């Protein structure tokens, strides 16, 4: 936990839940687990206020509770999760992701669930007034909800989920240990813990998704089909057929023919909450696609996107290090028809795909270039796959040479590559291009002496020394001492500079947290500077007749909206950096397991 992180969390909670909840969270972050009496003493709030604050925090999955014995009495101890608080800053990215994949209906459903923390589908139905909609809209609603549950965008909640994870694991361990007749050895204890974690994994991977009740077949007529794809604001197009993992979802209808549609029905009384770990997987995949798009072209990005979409089904969280195996044929089947493969790679000089006429002269492809034949398409895809798997990052690896080849995605390598790229950009922004070049050289060459660094970066020695110390002060690089004599005399030591990845990551995170904190503070200041104007806009007469505002006031409000948008965009960019630097790394995701 960092000081900047704690300060940021308090600001986020205040923004979303108000000052009372902020006071409770501040004390819990500082002190750790506390029960009601201790909270009352430390916060100086009244009992009802503290209880309401805790209820709000548990409702939104920020706080958890656990019964524990203190002396002779049992108390309920409450603790908060930093990760859950920081996730609130990513709400915009999550909503945009859901809108892109599920359409405006999915966005409305998901936003209702996010605002309420946990809720039933029945309550969502009431909130969105689905009962007043037409039959087709109701069917669309049900199918979108089923898809959200099936693909685990939202997950069923049970009473165990609000109990602090550490206590829950300890309880399960205690139950397993009770079954043994003799006290367990260290190996047996490890095996018990592994079994508990694997049990959770099995529940996730099982085809029975909690919350899906039964399959209902519904007759729908074709004239509703065209209306169902466009959202209310025309932004999103609903389902893309290549997105769905299995084909139980929506099917395009022909003109005037009635068809049976199989729709999974979701239990209206089951409580659901948003499953953010899964959404982080999708955001990570987007970053990987962006990397290949930037490095090569849009065609390469589209190809990697289709590989990741095929493997998404089995990737629960960012803790997974290697994806499932994907064959080239599967990639070819799943790639979108609109993927920009034309001109993505030149296969004309490729001897494996080159065709020759009877005289041995190469046949040049003179097709129009706007549409690709199936053969040409497969040629381009296989050529792109060859290029991608030989990329220096090692993200896409070929595991089997037989047939068209089998590929896997190495998420660990992906996290390292993306993080390095992000940190380089941060150093470039903060210090300049020369410092960034120094950092890249050290990363490539591992541990180097000062003189060797100066030679490699073509800098004068004193300039190089200053810049190395700048980077060391910022925590981007570190030194390792190699003693020349047995007495480890400091004057007779080698000091080698190197990139300490762990330290670098922590320093970068501190920068990001401080930046996000500054943005929130600036936002608060800009709003408070215009407090009177904002209060005026909330007057009943002004709401009814906006013409009561003067031109200057309207201009000032537009200025405020512009400033707020710029600050929010900056916040979103910083949060994307945080996602890349920390959240998607499988190792750090392991550390966050108990949070």
């Amino acid at each position, binding site marked *: 936990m960092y000081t900047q992180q704690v300060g940021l969390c308090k600001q986020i909670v205040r923004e979303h839940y108000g000052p009372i909840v902020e006071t409770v969270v501040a004390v819990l972050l500082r002190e750790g687990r506390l029960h009601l009496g201790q909270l009352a003493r430390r916060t100086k709030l009244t009992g009802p*206020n503290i209880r309401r604050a805790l209820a709000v925090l*548990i409702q939104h999955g920020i706080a958890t509770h656990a019964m524990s014995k203190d002396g002779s009495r049992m108390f309920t101890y409450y603790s908060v999760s930093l990760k859950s608080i920081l996730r609130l800053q990513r709400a915009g990215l999550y909503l945009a992701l859901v809108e892109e994949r599920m359409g405006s209906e999915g966005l409305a459903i998901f936003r209702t669930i996010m605002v309420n923390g946990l809720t039933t589908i029945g309550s969502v139905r009431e909130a969105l007034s689905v009962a007043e909609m037409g039959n087709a809209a109701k069917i669309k609603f049900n199918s979108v909800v089923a898809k959200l549950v099936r693909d685990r965008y939202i997950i069923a909640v049970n009473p165990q989920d609000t109990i602090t994870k550490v206590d829950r694991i300890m309880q399960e361990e205690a139950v397993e240990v009770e079954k043994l007749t003799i006290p367990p050895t260290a190996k047996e204890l490890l095996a018990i813990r592994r079994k508990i974690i694997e049990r959770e994994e099995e529940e996730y991977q099982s085809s029975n998704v909690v919350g899906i009740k039964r399959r209902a077949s519904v007759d729908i007529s074709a004239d509703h089909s065209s209306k169902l794809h466009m959202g209310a604001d025309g932004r999103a197009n609903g389902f893309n057929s290549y997105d769905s993992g299995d084909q139980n979802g929506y099917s395009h209808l022909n003109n005037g023919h009635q068809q049976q549609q199989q729709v999974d029905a979701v239990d209206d009384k089951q409580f659901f909450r948003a499953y953010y770990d899964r959404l982080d997987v999708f955001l990570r995949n987007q970053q990987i696609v962006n990397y290949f798009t930037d490095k090569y072209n849009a065609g390469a990005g589209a190809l990697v996107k289709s590989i990741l979409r095929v493997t998404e089904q089995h990737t629960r969280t960012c803790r997974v290090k290697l994806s499932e195996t994907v064959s080239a044929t599967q990639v070819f089947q799943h790639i979108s028809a609109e993927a920009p493969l034309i001109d993505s790679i030149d296969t004309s000089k490729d001897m494996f795909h080159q065709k020759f006429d009877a005289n041995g002269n190469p046949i040049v492809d003179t097709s129009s270039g706007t549409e690709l034949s199936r053969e040409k398409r497969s040629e381009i895809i296989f050529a792109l796959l060859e290029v991608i798997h030989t990329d220096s990052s090692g993200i896409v690896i070929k595991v089997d040479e037989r047939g068209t080849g089998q590929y896997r995605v190495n998420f660990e390598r992906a996290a390292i590559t993306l993080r390095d790229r992000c940190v380089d950009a941060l150093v470039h922004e903060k210090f300049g291009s020369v410092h960034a070049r120094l950092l890249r050289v050290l990363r490539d060459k591992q541990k180097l002496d000062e003189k060797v660094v100066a030679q490699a970066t073509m800098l004068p020695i004193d300039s190089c020394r200053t810049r190395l110390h700048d980077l060391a002060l910022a925590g981007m690089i570190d030194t390792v001492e190699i003693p020349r004599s047995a007495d480890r005399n400091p004057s007779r030591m080698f000091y080698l500079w190197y990139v300490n990845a762990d330290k670098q990551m922590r320093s970068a995170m501190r920068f990001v947290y401080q930046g996000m904190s500054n943005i929130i503070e600036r936002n608060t200041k800009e709003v408070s500077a215009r407090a009177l104007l904002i209060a005026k806009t909330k007057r009943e007469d002004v709401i009814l007749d906006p013409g009561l505002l003067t031109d200057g006031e309207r201009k000032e409000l537009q200025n405020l909206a512009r400033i707020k948008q710029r600050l929010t965009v900056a916040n979103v960019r910083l949060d994307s950096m945080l996602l890349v630097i920390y959240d998607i790394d499988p190792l750090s995701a392991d550390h966050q397991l108990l949070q």
Partner: protein
Amino acid sequence: MSRGRGRGGDGNRREISALQTELLGKSIFGKYGEKSSGFPEYDIVAGRAATEEERHVADLMEKFRAEMQSSVFCLQPPAPARDVERYSDRYFKATTRQSLKGLKTDVSLFPDELHSELLKKSTKGKKAAVYSGNGLLDALKGAKDDDEEGGDKSGSDADKTDKEDGDEELGDEEDEEDEEEGNDYLESYFENGEEDDMGDLDDDDGGGGDY
């Protein structure tokens, strides 16, 4: 003649007073726009412009934040009492937030000690408890009342509104009693000497004779 100006110890050097900076434009700092070593020129690099996607994400974020702030989950302390009544108060609607007790949630997810904030209390038990205490009070007070005014306040069919009316009536009766019976302060028990007639007093030899 350095009256009122500087310390007068060294006539050559004078401190620049505020009046001089106004009249003569002298300043211990350089003029605006002049370069100085303490404030070197700094090239502020503007960030890259937001793309369409980023603006859309920012809009979604703002809407979500606004929705959270207007929801029942944003707990605000009660607004401080207004010191002065203002004309614009009539245009500001008092925003009444819903209570958490109206929230549809699974109570089994919360520990028992928080259930009081999530579950609506039933009023039947409360009415009976209040009634039984006040019923005794009414009976005691009823014994003091006149027979003409004495209402039948005991009985199992009395409603809460009747009881409130009864309380109001009791209060009225008490006031009337006070007004009717008066209080001890209407009559003064002490003679303050205003009605005394000095001439009626007998001669007293206490102080001495008359002169």
